Structure formats: structure tokens, C-alpha cells
């Protein structure tokens, strides 16, 4: 095999591998801007997704309801907590992480109330160790190729 033919073969094989890899890639889950601005993931969750957020102020306290959905057919474990912020942007007390088990195809509602009337905003922190990948913040995309992490 000549050098030219060999390099063409290598190039061609490489392109095929890249194309197969791209075809197997799962795009990062799309979120509405409202949800994306309120939900902070530790990594990128591949399976469990926050799908809806509702916020209302009653009795001078912020009430939040977040709907999360497990589109897979297997049980998924997630940890979550809310971070409350006052009008000056200061974070109120740190909450404990709470475990949540989602059965396959299940929707769950995370309902909570702000710990004090001073809370005017919140963030929902979510962590799904079994179905998330680390994210490259600079590139704003998963650090690993999707086809390597999608089961």
C-alpha cells in the first residue's frame, strides 16, 4: 500500500468514525429560558429533566413548585436543594441536599416555601450522579462526547 493510499484510507476511516460518533450523539436537553435561569445542575443531567417551574408569593412567603420528569423506563436518583436569595442578592441559609427517587416515566413535584419573607428569588440546584456528565463551562457543553456517556 503506497503512502498516499494509506493516508487516504486513514482519513476516510477517521471521517467514518466521526460521522458514526456524531450520529450517536444525544444533543444536550433543551430548556426554556425561564427554567434555565433558575436551575443549576452539577454537570449536565441526561435523563431527569426539570420541565416546569411555578412561583407565587402567599402570606409574604415565596412558594415554589418545580416539576421534574424521568423520561426513561428505569428508576433514577436525584439530589436537589433550593438556594434562596434576598433583594440585595445575598444568599440566605444553605439548605441540605435532599434525595429524590423517580420511577421510570414518573413526574414529581418539588414543592417548597422560602425560609423567610426576605427571600425574593431562588435557584434550584440539582445533581443526578447516575445520569449526569461533567460540563466544560468555557465551551458550555459536555466535556465528554455524548456517545461515550449515553448508555
Amino acid at each position, binding site marked *: 500500500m503506497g503512502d498516499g493510499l494509506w493516508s487516504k484510507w486513514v482519513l476516510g476511516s477517521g471521517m467514518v468514525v466521526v460521522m458514526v460518533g456524531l450520529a450517536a450523539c444525544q444533543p444536550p436537553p433543551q430548556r426554556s429560558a425561564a427554567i434555565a435561569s433558575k436551575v443549576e445542575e452539577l454537570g449536565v443531567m441526561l435523563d431527569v429533566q426539570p420541565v416546569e417551574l411555578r412561583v407565587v408569593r*402567599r402570606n409574604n*412567603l415565596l412558594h415554589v413548585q418545580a416539576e421534574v420528569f424521568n423520561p426513561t423506563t428505569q428508576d433514577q436518583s436525584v439530589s436537589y436543594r433550593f438556594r434562596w436569595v434576598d433583594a440585595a442578592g445575598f444568599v440566605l441559609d444553605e439548605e*441540605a*441536599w*435532599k*434525595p429524590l427517587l423517580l420511577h421510570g416515566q414518573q413526574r414529581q413535584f418539588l414543592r417548597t*416555601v422560602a425560609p*423567610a*419573607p426576605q427571600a425574593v428569588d431562588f435557584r434550584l440546584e440539582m445533581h443526578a450522579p447516575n445520569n449526569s456528565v461533567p460540563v466544560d463551562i468555557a465551551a458550555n457543553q459536555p466535556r465528554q462526547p455524548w456517545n461515550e456517556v449515553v448508555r
Partner: protein
Amino acid sequence: MRRVAKLLVVTSLLAGCATGSGPTSPPLVGGNVQYGDAKAVETVTNTFGSTDLQMIAESMTRSMLQSPALHGGKRRPLVTVNEVKNKTSEYIDTRAITDSILTQMTKSGVVRFVVDTADMQDQTEELARQNQSGLYKKSTSKKMGRMEGADYRLVGSISSITKRTQDIHDVYYKFSLRLTEIESGVVEWADEKEIRKTTTR
């Protein structure tokens, strides 16, 4: 020659001491000790743990904050904590749970707590010392008979159901809490928190 050697040894030891205790000395490190996240989900064993305590306290506090009984009055209601009975088969410091609830409710600013039965001994002793020992100025000593009575009392219990097979150990905890108006005896608020923990071999 031996003197020179001794001098060298002493000098090097002193030098070692000087560098070891200087401002740039590293922290003492030994074994495999490291600090962890006190708020992390703890699943070391399936006995009652820190995550259970934190979840119960937070769930109860947030639920109680929504009670209409605590809102709308001219002044913030006064609450006292009664006992939370441990009906489980394991040792659980229920006082730690009620202390967390008291702390979070106090920080919310919605209610105030008055001295409960566990703290009453210290409270009365302090009042007696200020008024009866003759050690304090009359202008600064706090007067007897001016303590405020609570509007509500908190009472609760924690119970568990344990199931065990050769491969599975399942524990179900149920924490119940009630807020009762003291004068009328009416239960103004009640809630439960359930937790299931399963260990598989």
C-alpha cells in the same frame, strides 16, 4: 571532632524547630482525615442519619410557615416546644430535631419561642439569682412574674417500621408534628414526613 558533631546535631534540630513553627508552616495532616459537606446526602448506613434530621426539620418548618394560624395576628405568636417521643427501636436525639425546627422558625421571623420545660430550670435559677442573691443592681435585675405564656405548643413523635430479609433491610420512618393552641386545645396545624431507606446486600 565529637564536639563539632554534637554542635551540628543541635544546630540542625534548632533549625528544624524554627522552620516547623514559623508562619509558613503547613497545617497538621495525619491519616485520612478530611472535611466533608455537612449538607450532603448521607447514605453510610440505613439508621437515622444527618440527612433524615435535616429533611425532617426543613419539611416541618416550611410546612408550618404556611399555617394560617401563624399569620394575620397583630403580634408574632409565641410557641413552646413540648416533647417529641421516640417510638422507634433505635436511639434518636429528638431534641436535635426540635432544636433545628426552633432555629429555622425563629430565623424566619414569623414566630417567637418561649422557654420550654427543658430550659425552665435554668431560666428560673437565673431569675432567682438576679432577684434573691443580693448581688445585682435593682435597676438592672429582671423582675419576677413577667415571663410570657405561649400561645401554641409543639408536640410530636417519630416512629418506624423495620423489615428485614436475608438480602434486604428496609426502614420506614414517620415523623409527626402538631401545633396546638394552648387556651382552646385546638390543633391548628399538623404534618408528617415519611422517609424510606432500603439497604440491599
